[in-house]
């Protein structure tokens, strides 16, 4: 962890950054940061709801079963128990919901489709009583032959995860394939004629869970007006509002979502899960109902889709890609959630940021009786990047090229298409710069110590393809300002950026800008906090709201002072008058006069999709990252020691250098999680065997590479404010590919299944040695 040479120390020096006038790009201190260090920050489980009843969930220990009966008699006798809610207490047919398919029941109805799916909820005066009663619930069930793997789900005659009746009109309803995607361009058969080398391999990427340190929870409070206040640390409060309104049958104004800052989300807290159940329970109880999840319950609520990829790739002898065929099966779980979109959007970039004349990508979202997968940092891209980046290295090894050179020869230049055809996508950055910088920072080409290897890889991820963010900015009479922006601040530091933008545009010192978020009752609409979109979308909306304020200041200043509006002009932080430049807060004060009052600016950033685009529209931007890793392998135990890890992201413009570093380092290490140690392991009943913190391993302080270096390429070419782009996912897109290549170089053995656990590396080395012994015997045989 040596100081990153790529970032001069003074770039991250905070001296005076906060007190000074706005400085876009400066490492401004995090909004709300102090409360997060003292424990004063209130996460959902920290909020006090006097008189609330407590809810505990009831589950059964298998992944697929028909529920024969539920006996709550013992549970009801526990002192303090108020009610037991089963499917019988909820509307029939059971209401279902979901962001794309309305397939997720409010509570398991008739059967359980994954381990951990709640079949009942106990409501009690205390958490102790609720949990004690939940353990006394007797659920009779008949285990069904659930499908827990891709092979099982795709086998002829496989158990159907969804009864076809909940997929009416779907021609695929008799299969476990929920959706598929096909992207093709060029002529693969023709391209093979110009191909010198073909590599074909299978790759797997594990199911992994988000493991937010805040497990989270939900509190629903019925209001006197017959509405509901819903407290949940969600990334998309407005989607939750709409979901609750629709499931319960309330107008939007009667559902008010309070979204306390998520204590880590990473995509897992985007879509409604248990909130509709809690809404029904609160309505039934006519009092506040509170559910706080355990970490184990989050394992049952969110995960990343596992993936199996077969890839076949052609190269010329010069290392130029001629064709690339990918078949990717995403194991999405028991309900759709947003997983079909993960499959479609991830596989869209399965050919990587390369110039390939002929490509065929076929992907499927395959249902299994497992935790519903959802959005997770990278959104389907890391899975296919693992395969495609490994294929590049496989080709390079055959051709005698190195990992850097083969990427140099194929990486697209700015404006060049890496997805061709009707829905083409073109490079929107100087991506080569990131690749070269990563190579330079890792010391590519320098001599390697024994048992060490280096790998380099690149990754891309499409940003949002449509979207809407609305914002209000109030400039108050004393020059302070309040921003209303619905982005959830889940650790990325969104509010800090809004402060910076307001400070830059209105000339208000950063510490006099406050931000209101997390309340659909007071804050205007924002579609979502996901896809690293907020800097671009909400940032633009806040920027526009500030400019709206400036125009209004100019108009009122003209009216108040009598200076003709034509003789006035406005600029960032200033009003230009015939007598000179006035600071905007000063001009605002003069304009408002003795009645005081305030200016209210409104900003909207809307990106309409394209109906005929397979993703529903062109991505607003692409995240591009180059990662290079140097690893030392213990050949006897299979243990990896990462001696150096370099991540370079194409960021457009760094609005806050410190936050960019935090996001990049965090994503890089999270990428090491799925590359090195993380995987959900299931038993034959579909139960998660490593359920919880004791046996599901995520990176710790001691797993951080000895040297972790991040750097940013800034060409001010993004669509966001001041040329910015989203940056929060890049550093984990291709971690696996870089690590895999490094291990391959260090050991001479290629591993195509993640994670690269010590045992997996050891087994690969053992198998390779056995093969070479067998080969030697064969050769020496008479």
């Amino acid at each position: 962890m040596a100081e990153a040479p790529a970032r001069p120390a003074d770039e991250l020096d905070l001296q005076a950054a906060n007190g000074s006038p706005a400085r876009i790009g400066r490492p401004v201190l995090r909004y709300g940061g102090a409360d997060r260090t003292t424990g004063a920050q209130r996460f959902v489980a920290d909020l006090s709801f006097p008189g609330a009843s407590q809810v505990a969930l009831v589950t059964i220990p298998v992944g697929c079963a028909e529920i024969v009966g539920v006996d709550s008699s013992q549970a009801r006798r526990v002192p303090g128990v108020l009610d037991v809610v089963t499917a019988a207490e909820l509307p029939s047919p059971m209401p279902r919901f979901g962001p794309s398919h309305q397939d997720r029941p409010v509570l398991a109805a008739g059967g359980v489709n994954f381990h951990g799916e709640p079949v009942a909820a106990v409501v009690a005066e205390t958490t102790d009583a609720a949990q004690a009663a939940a353990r006394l619930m007797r659920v009779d069930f008949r285990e069904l032959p659930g499908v827990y793997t891709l092979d099982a789900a795709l086998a002829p005659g496989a158990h159907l995860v969804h009864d076809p009746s909940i997929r009416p009109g779907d021609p695929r309803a008799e299969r476990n394939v929920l959706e598929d995607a096909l992207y093709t361009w060029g002529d693969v058969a023709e391209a093979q004629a110009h191909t010198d080398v073909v590599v074909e391999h299978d790759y797997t990427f594990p199911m992994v869970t988000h493991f937010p340190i805040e497990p989270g929870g939900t509190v629903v409070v019925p209001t006197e007006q017959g509405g509901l206040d819903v407290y949940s640390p969600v990334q998309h409060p407005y989607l939750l509002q709409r979901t609750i309104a629709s499931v319960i049958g309330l107008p939007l104004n009667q559902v008010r979502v309070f979204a306390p800052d998520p204590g880590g989300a990473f995509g897992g807290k985007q879509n409604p899960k248990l909130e509709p159940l809690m809404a029904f329970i609160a309505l039934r109880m006519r009092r506040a109902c509170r559910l706080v999840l355990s970490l184990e319950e989050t394992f049952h609520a969110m995960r990343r889709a596992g993936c199996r990829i077969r890839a076949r790739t052609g190269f010329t002898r010069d290392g130029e890609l001629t064709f690339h065929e990918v078949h990717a099966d995403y194991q999405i779980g028991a309900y759709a959630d947003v997983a079909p979109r993960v499959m479609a959007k991830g596989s869209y970039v399965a050919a990587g940021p390369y110039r390939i004349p002929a490509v065929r990508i076929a992907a499927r979202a395959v249902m299994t009786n497992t935790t519903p997968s959802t959005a997770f940092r990278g959104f389907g891209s890391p899975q296919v990047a693992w395969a495609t980046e490994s294929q590049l290295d496989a080709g390079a090894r055959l051709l005698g090229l190195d990992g850097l050179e083969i990427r140099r020869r194929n990486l697209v230049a700015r404006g060049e298409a890496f997805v061709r055809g009707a829905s083409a996508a073109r490079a929107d950055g100087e991506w080569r710069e990131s690749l070269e910088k990563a190579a330079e920072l890792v010391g590519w080409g320098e001599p390697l110590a024994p048992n060490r290897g280096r790998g380099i890889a690149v990754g891309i991820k499409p940003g949002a393809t449509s979207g809407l963010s609305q914002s209000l900015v109030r400039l108050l009479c004393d020059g302070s300002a309040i921003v209303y922006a619905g982005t959830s601040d889940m650790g990325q530091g969104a509010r800090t950026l809004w402060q910076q933008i307001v400070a830059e545009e209105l000339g208000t010192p950063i510490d006099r800008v406050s931000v209101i978020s997390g309340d659909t009752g007071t804050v205007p609409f924002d579609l979502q906090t996901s896809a690293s979109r907020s800097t671009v979308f909400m940032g633009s909306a806040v920027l526009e709201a500030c400019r709206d304020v400036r125009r209004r200041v100019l108009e009122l200043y003209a009216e108040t002072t009598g200076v003709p509006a034509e003789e006035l002009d406005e600029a960032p932080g200033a009003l230009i008058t015939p007598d000179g430049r006035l600071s905007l807060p000063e001009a605002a004060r003069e304009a408002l006069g003795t009645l005081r009052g305030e200016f209210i600016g409104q900003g909207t950033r809307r990106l309409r999709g394209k109906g005929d685009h397979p993703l529903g529209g062109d991505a607003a931007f692409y995240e591009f990252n180059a990662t290079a890793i140097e690893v030392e392998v213990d050949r006897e135990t299979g243990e990896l020691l990462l001696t150096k890890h370099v991540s370079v992201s194409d960021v457009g413009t760094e609005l806050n250098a410190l936050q960019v570093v935090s996001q990049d380092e965090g994503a890089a290490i999270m990428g090491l999680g799925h590359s090195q140690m993380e995987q959900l392991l299931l038993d034959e009943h579909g139960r998660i065997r490593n359920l919880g913190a004791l046996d599901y391993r995520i990176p710790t302080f001691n797993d951080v590479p000895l040297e972790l270096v991040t750097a940013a390429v800034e060409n001010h070419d993004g669509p966001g404010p001041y040329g910015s782009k989203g940056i929060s996912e890049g550093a984990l897109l291709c971690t696996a590919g870089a690590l895999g290549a490094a291990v391959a170089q260090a050991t001479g053995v290629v591993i195509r299944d993640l994670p690269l656990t010590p045992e997996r590396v050891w087994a690969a080395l053992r198998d390779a040695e056995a093969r070479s012994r067998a080969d030697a015997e064969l050769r020496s045989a008479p």
Partner: protein
Amino acid sequence: MSAGGLHDLQTVALTVNGSERTVAVPAHRTLLDALRDEMGLTGSKTCCAEGECGACTVLLDGRAVNACLVLCAEADGHEVTTVEGLSERGLTDLQEEFLNAGAVQCGFCIPGQVVSAEYLLRGNPSPSEEQIREALSGNLCRCAGYQRIVRAVQATAARRRGDRG
């Protein structure tokens, strides 16, 4: 507790952040739950609740412990310092350095990190990078601000030694 006969209650008298507190809790109540639910001290966080994540780290008689692995009853007659106790006179130098280093992201693990780091620095004013990593390796951060946190601890150590300013 109003669980009405579900559990016998145990009276526990302890000192929390310098104040004497008496609570009546069932025997199985952890110190973490008692701090959060009975005493309103929600700075210590609940994640794994089995000693793996460090989000609930507090000082018990001056030693860093996982509050989720201590029964409240065990703390009878003992002294507990939570993150709130460390912050009673405003931000400490350590907390300031967490902010300066960009170590605070979602923030959920940070109170535990701050307590563990404070404990380290009290026992070892000049920890090496390796010692910092080892001392904090029981505190998980899923935002993975690990390198930033190490910087914050180093900066605090330097500040306390008077190396700067």
